[in-house]
């Protein structure tokens, strides 16, 4: 009963949703590289590299995860809150710039072609290493998101569930279509995730510093809505202003 209540809390729902959306973005990016390796060198080096990276990530989590338990809660909230603010605001900024046309949109098809060209004359070992690096680097962001969203508040299971769901969904669709998942609305996802991560960052930094948010955890939804609506308005305003100049 207690688990059901905690799963339904606004923080748990936000943790699952933000972890799911953010992980989708990262896993789609890693999948593009692994697919490029597989299309040139076969699935063996691609999967070896990807599985090696997943094992390295698991080792990192096992090595550093328990250390987080020893950090006092308010220090952990400030540390993770500030990290989430920096990470989330960075994503939100990029999403606004892309939505307004100030920055080129992320193009999975283009990245797939570039990666294939780069690996054209590579050995199976080098191709496997490329898959390893892609999964390790994107996976590192997923691990950060899970820890940042879940640590210190008993939401690690909720955040991990969101990420696992994203991995299952991307891999299922990816293995079925066997093409880069360029139709995933990467920038829209980044917009929503950036707003959610920023709201988590604001909330936890504030809590760590002694701020009592009105409505408790429900304030998270208000913060997310504020970041999202401000970002969307900013993007629309910049797009209109650029159109006037052109």
């Amino acid at each position, binding site marked *: 009963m207690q688990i059901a209540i905690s799963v339904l809390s606004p923080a748990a729902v936000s943790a699952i949703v933000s972890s799911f959306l953010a992980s989708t973005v990262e896993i789609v990016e890693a999948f593009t590289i692994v697919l490029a390796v597989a299309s040139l060198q076969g699935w063996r080096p691609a999967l070896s590299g990807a599985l090696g990276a997943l094992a390295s990530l698991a080792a990192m989590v096992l090595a550093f995860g328990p250390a987080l338990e020893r950090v006092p809660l308010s220090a952990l909230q400030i540390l993770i809150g500030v990290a989430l603010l920096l*990470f989330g*605001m*960075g994503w939100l900024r990029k999403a606004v710039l892309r939505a*307004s046309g100030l920055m080129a949109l992320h193009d999975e098809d283009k990245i797939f072609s570039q990666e294939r060209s780069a690996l054209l004359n590579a050995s199976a070992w080098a191709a496997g290493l490329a898959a390893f690096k892609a999964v390790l680097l994107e996976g590192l962001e997923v691990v950060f998101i899970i820890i940042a969203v879940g640590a210190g508040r008993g939401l690690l299971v909720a955040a991990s569930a969101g990420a696992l769901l994203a991995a299952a969904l991307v891999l299922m669709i990816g293995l079925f279509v066997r093409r880069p998942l360029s139709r995933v609305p990467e920038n829209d996802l980044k917009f929503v995730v950036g707003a959610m991560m920023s709201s988590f960052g604001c909330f936890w930094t*504030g809590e760590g510093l002694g*701020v009592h948010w009105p409505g408790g955890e429900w304030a998270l939804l208000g913060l997310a809505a*504020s970041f999202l609506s401000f970002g969307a308005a900013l993007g629309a305003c910049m797009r209109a202003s650029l159109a006037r*100049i052109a």
Partner: protein
Amino acid sequence: MGVLGELLRELASMFFGAPRLALPLLILVAIVAAVAGAGWPEIAGAILVFGCLALLGENVFNEARARKHSKR
């Protein structure tokens, strides 16, 4: 060293990919900490929220202005 170097670079870019936004954000958090420490947690919370939104707006406007000037 290659993979480790890339890993560290990726880690740094996760948080400081946009230094003109990251640095002011850190300064904002320091100000918020000072205000909360002085016994005004509600004001500190408001400064944090509106400060973040203001910094985002300022950063995007500056980026747009810089690109406009570079096009001239």
